[in-house]
């Protein structure tokens, strides 16, 4: 039972967090008087210094990667290195797409990420609605089973999942990349918690008027759940975009590889070609970066809710 409790508090902590982050930007400064004003000044200086160093530390590797991606072979090996390549070799990006089917990797990744996101939203919101709003025998036991699975690391299910996929003859197909990821216990849990927070009065009125359960789900629950669905969507999308171990296992053909798997093999094939490697890596990061910059607040919420760092 303690698992249930910890996930429950995680979720609520996450929700409080999302709210807290917004509030923080407009926090009212306590009026400083006399000597406290100096102390405040010192504090702020230290804070900005720490954040400045931290930001530099976070960004420098990316800047170095972009810089390298625009250098010619000989420029890469110049000592001391120049941060701004002169001339900038934009052709590296084109060269990469000729060395490996980069466009194909990109399409594969996009197809998988988009399809999984849509399927996960549909199946999870259906199940979440049943768990949150309908009464039927076995419901609470099934829900506990869902919660229990959340605790188990993905590696434990890896081998049977691979066996099922190869038994179905799905190795090197989109189905192998998409189907196992399309049913999320986590997404069900997340949406159920959100649906529970919607006041039931509206639905009761709709029931009185003879609205079906599906009608309630479609016309009341879904329209009121925009933020929760968006949070799950960006999270599912990012997870799929960055997934590595599963695509590595179920793809053999080069044309079925996703970006992460493709880049990894490219790294092995062209170990010394750092300008090409960096150009490929830049191209793999740009799409997710754009999605992130547009939908930042949903990312922040989704990541906080899932406890997902980097592995």
């Amino acid at each position, binding site marked *: 039972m303690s698992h*249930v*409790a910890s996930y*429950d*508090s995680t979720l609520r902590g996450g929700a409080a*967090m999302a709210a807290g*982050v917004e509030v*923080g*930007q407009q*926090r009212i400064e*306590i009026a400083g008087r006399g000597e*406290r004003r100096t102390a405040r000044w010192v504090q702020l200086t230290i*804070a*900005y210094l720490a*954040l400045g160093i*931290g930001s530099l530390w976070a960004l420098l*590797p990316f800047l170095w990667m972009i810089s*390298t991606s625009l250098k010619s072979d000989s420029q890469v*090996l110049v*000592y*001391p*290195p120049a941060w701004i390549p002169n001339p900038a070799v934009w052709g590296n990006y084109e060269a990469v797409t000729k060395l490996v089917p980069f466009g194909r990797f990109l399409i594969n990744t996009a197809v998988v990420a988009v399809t999984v996101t849509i399927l996960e939203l*549909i*199946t999870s919101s*259906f199940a979440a609605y*049943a*768990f949150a*709003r309908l*009464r*039927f025998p076995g*419901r609470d036991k*099934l829900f506990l089973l869902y919660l229990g699975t959340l605790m188990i690391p993905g*590696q*434990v*299910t*890896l*081998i049977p*999942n*691979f066996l*099922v996929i190869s038994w179905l003859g799905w190795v090197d197909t989109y189905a192998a990349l998409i189907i196992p990821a399309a*049913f*999320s216990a986590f997404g069900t849990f997340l949406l159920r918690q959100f649906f*529970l927070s919607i006041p*039931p009065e509206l639905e009761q009125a709709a029931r009185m008027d003879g609205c079906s359960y*599906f009608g309630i789900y479609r016309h009341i629950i879904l329209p009121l759940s925009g933020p929760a669905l968006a949070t799950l969507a960006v999270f599912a999308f990012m997870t799929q975009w*960055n997934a*590595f*171990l599963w695509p590595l*296992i179920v793809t053999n053909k080069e044309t079925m590889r996703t970006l*992460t798997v493709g*880049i990894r093999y490219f790294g092995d094939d062209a170990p010394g070609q750092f300008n090409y490697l960096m150009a490929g*890596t830049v191209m*793999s990061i740009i799409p997710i970066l754009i999605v992130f*910059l547009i939908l930042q607040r949903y990312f*922040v919420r989704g990541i*906080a809710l899932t*406890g*997902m*760092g*980097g*592995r």
Partner: protein
Amino acid sequence: MATTLKAAARPVTRRSGGFSPMRRQETITGYLFLLPNIIGFLVFSSVPVLATFTISLLDWDLIRTPQFVGLDNYIKLLTDDALFRKVLWNTAYYVLGTVPAGVVLSLLMALAMNANVRGIAVFRAIFFIPVISASVAVAMMWRWLYNTDYGLINMILATVGIKAVPWLASTAWAMPAVIIMAIWKTLGYNMLIFLAGLQSIPIHLHEAASIDGATSFQRFRYITVPLLAPTTFFVLVISGINSFQVFDLAFVLTRGGPGDATNTMVMYIYNQAFQFFHMGYAAAVAWVLFAIIFAVTLCQHQLQKRWVHYEHE
């Protein structure tokens, strides 16, 4: 807490004397709504957990018929596998290297951000870019940063007179290299959770303490630290669980090398299952990993009673 969860949902009330037609309709509808998710859930999540355990009792290479060998895989793993011990040690090294340092650094950044600085959204976005980037991309990037002759890191070290470090080529430096990269990648994530925790501490407590003449260090020690303890606990548990499962970062940066210096438990599962096709053995490793994660999380949960106090208790 479990009671809140249950109370929040409408209770399933069972009436004696069978289902009314309305109740029956609700049951059928309920299962229909569950159906698409639950099929996938059973096939790809819950049944495989049990299947993995069954497979771990087999000697199976996917070609010959599986042989039932009882607990032999576990016994061999725990008593007669030097590489597994090495892998276990590497994973522990990685966890101990990333978790405490990651927690401290991200807390420092969160404290700086909580000091009413301007541009919090910009800083947050910057710290988050490593978090949203794929581990594979990050590892590829750091492979170049760590390059002995032309990598940025050794060039920066050279400016302060430190000789080139053979990061990825040396058994001593490879694991620290993976650890530094992992801390870099997860900093923004932990920082965000700490920031939320800091912002949930009621500001009037700090005000009252200031009026009573508390210094900022005293306020940190006696207000921030105790009230942040639940958040710290959460970050520790999540970072611990994630660190034990490290794969992508190490696999792409070093491929487990040199000489198994960065070979970790999940990499061992991957190699046993998908390189050598020792399915039973790999399944046993997966269960041991699960048991370790479970035990460590349980220990943390027990220990928290000594240092984490929740407000509503």
